[in-house]
């Protein structure tokens, strides 16, 4: 029997893989020591476990152990990378470049930096979420210290050409930071080949626990430094104080090891399921895929069902868990700023649904989802005055709407 509801919101968070949980449990009970306790075996075994996890995490992204700073998650990594570079390199310049479709943790950190006297340029994207590399190059000045561009977008899955971006950034003497939260563990990410100087990612998007992440800080060619944003005991080579979340880190390490072994087969299987879902849903009239179909994450699709509203639609999805770029989910009346940045028009942005698959998604679940979504969209369209107008051939742009 198919167990309901079906979880298709893996870009928000993933379940912990049972193998990960199994690895973690002893570090809550038996080996509960503080990894900073150097004077007894409890501390030693915790430290050994952290060292091992650090190797596992480093290996996944082709880094060395000393380049991994454990954090509480990707948001902390975004803050530490951006504020830390801004503080550390203030003598060189005060200019940072980022993109309008970044995660709030990057955009709001950018705003904070502006208040601290920094200058931030926000690059625009085209209708698939791509940046213009020439625009990036032109935006870099001799005051530019950091370019912050996410590896893959969380809402529509568009993957940015990080290698080409890195070449441009380095040619101009700036550093490249990437928020790779959605990419690491899902697609191959190699900090050496990709030319990344700083990178944040998190365990709970790759079948690890919540509350633990990492910031990669390059140590060679060039050696990158960040100013600590948390003062205290000087953990993580002075860059991030605070007692290490040992069980979480152990789980992160195990999740990274499993991702290395299984990422390719997961991606292959999930992209086939994603394509099946997408093709079936595009069979509905007036359904459009958002993002770049030629460069995107394998497990995600973002579809706008025109003439139905996203939140109303999600309410009809009683048996599937997805997310929407619609206004109402954010408790503000604004639809997704990411989809608006694509120039989609608010009506399409309001009508978008993100389906994100994961390691535990089955074909049976996808088949169920296809039927469920088709029924819901059809039901809501029958109730939609916009759909009726569309069907009658009325151009909605000619109507003078009472904006409220």
């Amino acid at each position, binding site marked *: 029997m198919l167990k309901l509801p079906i979880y298709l919101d893996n870009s928000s968070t993933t379940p912990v893989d049972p193998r990960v949980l199994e690895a973690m449990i002893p570090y809550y009970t038996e080996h509960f020591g503080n990894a900073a306790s150097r004077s007894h075996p409890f501390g030693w075994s915790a430290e050994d476990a952290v060292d091992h996890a650090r190797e596992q995490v480093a290996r996944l992204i082709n880094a060395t152990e000393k380049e991994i700073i454990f954090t509480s998650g990707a948001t902390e990594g975004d803050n530490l990378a951006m504020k830390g570079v801004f503080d550390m390199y203030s003598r060189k310049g005060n200019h940072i470049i980022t993109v309008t479709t970044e995660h709030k943790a990057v955009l709001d950190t950018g705003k904070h930096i502006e208040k601290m006297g920094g200058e931030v340029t926000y690059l625009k994207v085209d209708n698939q979420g791509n940046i213009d590399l020439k625009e990036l190059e032109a935006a870099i000045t001799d005051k530019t210290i950091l370019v912050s561009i996410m590896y893959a977008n969380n809402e529509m899955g568009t993957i940015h050409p990080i290698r080409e971006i890195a070449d441009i950034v380095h040619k101009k003497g700036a550093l490249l930071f990437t928020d790779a939260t959605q990419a690491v563990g899902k697609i191959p990410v190699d900090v050496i080949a990709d030319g990344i100087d700083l990178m944040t990612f998190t365990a709970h998007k790759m079948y690890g626990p919540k509350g633990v992440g990492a910031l990669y800080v390059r140590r060679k060619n060039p050696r990158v430094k960040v100013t600590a944003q948390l003062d205290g005991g000087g953990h993580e080579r002075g860059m991030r104080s605070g007692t290490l979340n040992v069980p979480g880190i152990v789980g992160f390490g195990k999740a990274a090891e499993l991702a290395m072994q299984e990422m390719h087969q997961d991606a292959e299987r999930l992209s086939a399921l994603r394509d099946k879902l997408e093709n079936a849903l595009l069979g509905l009239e007036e359904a459009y895929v958002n993002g770049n179909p030629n460069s995107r994450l394998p497990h995600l699709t973002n579809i706008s069902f025109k003439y139905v509203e996203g*939140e109303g639609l999600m309410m009809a999805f009683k048996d599937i868990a997805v997310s929407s770029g619609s206004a109402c989910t954010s408790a503000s009346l604004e639809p997704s700023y990411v989809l608006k940045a694509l120039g989609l028009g608010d009506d399409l942005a309001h009508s978008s649904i993100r389906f994100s698959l994961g390691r535990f998604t089955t074909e049976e679940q996808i088949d169920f989802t296809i039927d469920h979504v088709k029924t819901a969209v059809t039901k809501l369209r029958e109730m939609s005055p916009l759909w009726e107008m569309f069907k009658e051939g009325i151009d909605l742009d000619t109507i003078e709407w009472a904006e409220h």
Partner: protein
Amino acid sequence: MAYSKKVLEHYENPRNVGSMDAKKQEVGTGLVGAPECGDVMRLQIEVDPETHVIKDAKFKTFGCGSAIASSSLATEWLKNKTIDEAMTIDNMDIVEELALPPVKIHCSVLAEDAIKAAIQDYRKKNGLPELELEAKIVH
């Protein structure tokens, strides 16, 4: 966000979904909201020209569950009221009946606007004096 039972009930079983012929003399149509804002309601009434009693009401709504429930409820309330009685329906009555949270109050305002717009349309078509509608400002 959790929805109230009443919102869910209207959403699951919306009353009076449909369309009337907007050209007919005894039909009044109110179309309010905008696609950009994420909700559009179309509310239609069919009025007895002798008694000005609303004989039937229909709606179609593009919007969230609360917007659909608000318009569904409005059509229920409109039936068998005179157009003057219908003018007294206040958005806060809808808020109360459906237990809408503050973030969804705009849905009830939209429903009230739709009722008034439909009545106004009917009045215009039938040579009745137009009413002065005051806009409720919520956004």
